[in-house]
């Protein structure tokens, strides 16, 4: 055997940037995270040409899943054109030659930071959520080793206590985004910093969701048709943001998660956060055809 037999022909870059060994590790861990929904699986998490904390976990999953036919959508804060979403989309297309799209219905794979699109995802679609902090227990236990033990024991008492204290103190659960949720009745997970508005979209969904934290080196998943239940007390129901009655000043759409835009006169205007939903609404309003799909929320309410 010669030295060259140990390696492969030189390439400036592997397809999809990641080398075979990185992809295989991610594949193995993705299978495990699907097999135990909501349970954080550790992985090596390679460095990629993007800073840690900028979607490197989601990116590694996307780069492992894509092939030249995969139509990719990338959003940040609901918007395809947000600078980092544009950067990630450009990177994936550049290293994997994938077609890209802004239409949630048209995408095979959606990588997102902080939002789930308003249109219902189908069973042939995969949602990849970027996760800054995969550990829902961190506010009550910053030490990873102890937190892991708590998950092993399904010891979520301190989590409940914290929620209870918030209700006593403030009259409600103060958790904004990243609302801790029980998956398949066993593991508490963070749904990533999506707003409370989006958490019910994960419950018994048709699509597969993979959540990946590159910096913290943890991957977890919500398979289709899996229970995802926000932690709530029976007498204090789960409350999504009160956006159901708000209207987008740009597109006129009502009943979706909004961005609040402060105005000079001290008031607020609202713009729909899912930018492509806004674009589609404008298109329909202007008589340029209906391209909107069915949405999770109807009239500002999530049907039970």
């Amino acid at each position, binding site marked *: 055997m010669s030295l060259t037999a140990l390696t492969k022909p030189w390439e400036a870059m592997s397809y999809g940037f990641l080398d075979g060994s990185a992809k295989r590790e991610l594949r193995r861990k993705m299978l495990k995270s699907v097999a135990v929904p909501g349970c954080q699986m550790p992985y090596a998490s390679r460095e990629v040409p993007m800073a840690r904390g900028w979607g490197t976990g989601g990116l590694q999953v996307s780069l492992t899943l894509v092939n030249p036919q995969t139509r990719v959508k990338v959003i940040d804060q609901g918007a395809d054109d947000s600078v980092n979403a544009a950067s990630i989309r450009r990177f994936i297309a550049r290293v994997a030659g994938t077609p890209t799209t802004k239409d949630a219905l048209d995408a095979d794979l959606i990588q997102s930071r902080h939002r789930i699109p308003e249109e219902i995802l189908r069973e042939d679609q995969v949602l990849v959520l970027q996760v800054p902090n995969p550990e829902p227990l961190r506010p009550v236990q910053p030490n990873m080793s102890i937190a892991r033990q708590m998950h092993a024991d399904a010891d979520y008492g301190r989590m409940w206590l914290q929620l209870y204290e918030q209700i006593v103190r403030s009259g409600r659960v103060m958790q*904004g985004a990243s609302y801790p949720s029980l998956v398949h009745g066993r593991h508490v997970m963070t749904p990533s910093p*999506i707003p409370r508005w989006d958490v019910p979209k994960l419950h018994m969904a048709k699509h597969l969701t993979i959540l990946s934290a590159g910096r913290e080196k943890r991957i977890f998943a919500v398979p289709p048709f899996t229970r995802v239940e926000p932690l709530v007390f029976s007498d204090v129901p789960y409350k999504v943001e009160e956006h159901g009655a708000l209207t987008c000043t740009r597109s006129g759409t009502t009943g979706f998660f909004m961005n609040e835009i402060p105005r000079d006169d001290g008031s607020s205007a609202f713009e729909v956060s899912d930018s492509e939903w806004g674009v589609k609404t404008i298109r329909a309003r202007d008589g340029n055809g209906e391209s909107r799909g069915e949405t999770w929320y109807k009239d500002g309410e999530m049907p039970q």
Partner: protein
Amino acid sequence: MAYVATRGGERAIEQSERLFREEMGGFDRDRVEEVKKSLPYLIDRVMGEASLYDEDLAALALAQTGGELYEAVLLLRAWRTTQPRLQVAAPIEQDTLFTHRRISAAFKDIPGGQVLGPTLDYAHRILATDVLQGAPYAPEPVEPATNPSPAYQPSVSAWQAENDLIDPPTNDPTKGNDIPDLTREPLLFPSKRAHTLQSLARAETGGVLALGYAAMRGYGQAHPTVNELRLAEAEIAVTHPDGRQFSAGRVKVSQAEVVDKKGEKLGIGYAATFGWNEVKCIAAATLDLNSPGAEKGSATEEEFFLYHTEGVESSGFCIHFKLPHYVTFQSSLDAMRDAKAKKAGQSKSSDMEPAE
């Protein structure tokens, strides 16, 4: 159809990168060569933190980023991660290091002698301003010793072990591919010894110093004595597929052993890294010395210092706060307003705890 305020994002990010690059100007091979020649200690630091020993690539990364160190290290790590693993070099024993500098603060003299080697330790730190006046700086020639010190020397701790002052670490026979590799598996706690040492070796110098310094000042239990500090070159011995061993070259390494009394014996902390970087090795060895039995959540606890000295992760997370967070902010705002309204409904007190 201008919808998003940042529409045109693709163009904006492209132009902002162009602006950065234009302000820095072009660079070529000569610039890279010049960086490599003139800044060897910076190159060493970057190679150590990137855990990639290649002076040319390190110099290239510095030239390409204008010396933005976190960016340079990230460039090198991202390049490194895609490279195939051809071989794992043979383990190195301390007495096979080609030693340039080796000092001990524990003993006045040590077997093999104190070898000062190249150092600025006793230099007067006076800025050579006359260079700016046009007078080039030419270093005084070194006068070779009549009796040169031996290039290969045992470790000080080996002598201490012989004299029953120290329990030497048990020999770990793990070889080749079986050695745990931090870049191929996640860091889990309690950490594998190999992972701890690898993590310290590629830790960010400033971060290691900050936490090591905290331990030195008294936030750690053990007070370090520098048992041995060594700057050396290590032979990279690899095996050809036909079975022959050969040298793939030498790399600069630094290592530190620090000790403290622990019962009737000395406790020992150890760290080593690519390149010559004494501050990092002493600080890292101090953390290693302090870590057994350290309180959970303290700066000298392994989980705490390994996570928080990882420069690519910490710098990346720090700058990620520049990204828009208006969805999470909106969500918190909603909870705050609702709680406020509830409280106003109950009483007039509006003092409340914000969401985290």
